[in-house]
């Protein structure tokens, strides 16, 4: 399964990718914002990890856009963001995000959320 990591911060993309690699996930595509993610999205993508605040298109808009597509209706979307106000979390959930991690995060939390969404442990 290919993971799509979406974040406008190059540092955060690397940290998320390093965390994924640490839990055994290495098939990863990067995108710098929601618009870039939509351009890179396709049948090969099996999981989306996205930030919220990004230029051009944010994470919530990306989730809505993916849910509006036939091939994006059921794709697991995990939001990793600094936003942690209750209303924001509810907005994310209503936009189609399946689970939510607040920054700064640990690889353990990342693995737990991915495993829960995929249904089985994705890696050792």
């Amino acid at each position, binding site marked *: 399964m290919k993971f799509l990591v979406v974040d*406008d*911060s190059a*540092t955060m993309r690397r940290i998320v990718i390093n965390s994924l690699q640490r839990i055994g996930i290495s098939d990863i595509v990067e995108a710098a914002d929601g618009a870039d993610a939509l351009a890179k999205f396709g049948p090969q993508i099996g999981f989306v990890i996205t930030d919220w*605040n990004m230029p051009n298109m944010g994470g919530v808009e990306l989730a809505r856009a993916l849910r509006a597509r036939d091939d994006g209706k059921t794709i697991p979307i995990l939001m990793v963001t600094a936003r942690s106000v209750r209303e924001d*979390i509810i907005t994310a959930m209503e936009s189609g995000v399946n689970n939510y991690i607040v920054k*700064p995060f*640990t690889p353990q939390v990342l693995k737990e959320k991915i495993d829960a969404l995929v249904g089985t442990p994705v890696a050792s």
Partner: protein
Amino acid sequence: MTTRVQQVLYDSEATLRLVDSELGELGAVDTAKHLGSALGVLPMILEQANKEIVQILESLRKNKTQLQSAAVERLQHTHSKLEEVNTTTESAATGILDSLDKAQSILDTLDADDTEKTGKSAELRDAMRNELFSITEALQFQDITSQQIRYAANVLVELEEKLLSVLHLIDVTGLDDARAALHGTGRGTYDPNATTKDRDVRQHVADEIFESDAPKE
């Protein structure tokens, strides 16, 4: 400066009241009797009023220049300094991540050489890997602080916009460049509440919300 402006304003008000009073007299009293003398005084009064208005405008222009240099220019300088902090920390974080990747790669090479992967050295390599990764994890601070800085920079931009509006009321000259510079200011995206504090508590809130909405089996 404020006292001087107030004094000039009081003087102008007094002059204008005098004009008003003279004009009132022209209409209310026997015009034939007073018209000649009142009209004779009027140009002098108007000239005095004009001088005072010019003085007020000069004073306001001076204030505008002082406001522009003391406030707007300093705000723009502070804004650019904040942007510099963002760029520098991002560049430093990238450099640290590069070094961490190299260190991990060295550990992988050491692992490959030690085919048995037993004993103290294997344990030490694992411990080293964990330590290196904890540095990677800690670098998330850069994303959070960069959002906090963007928030502060955005507050400055809003302040500049308000000051420019005030300056525009006084004098429109020379403000176009300032407005153009302001519009060219990159604001970026940010969360005004971004913080590194209370991670577990905030994660718990998110978990509660998502669990409460999870489909019941």
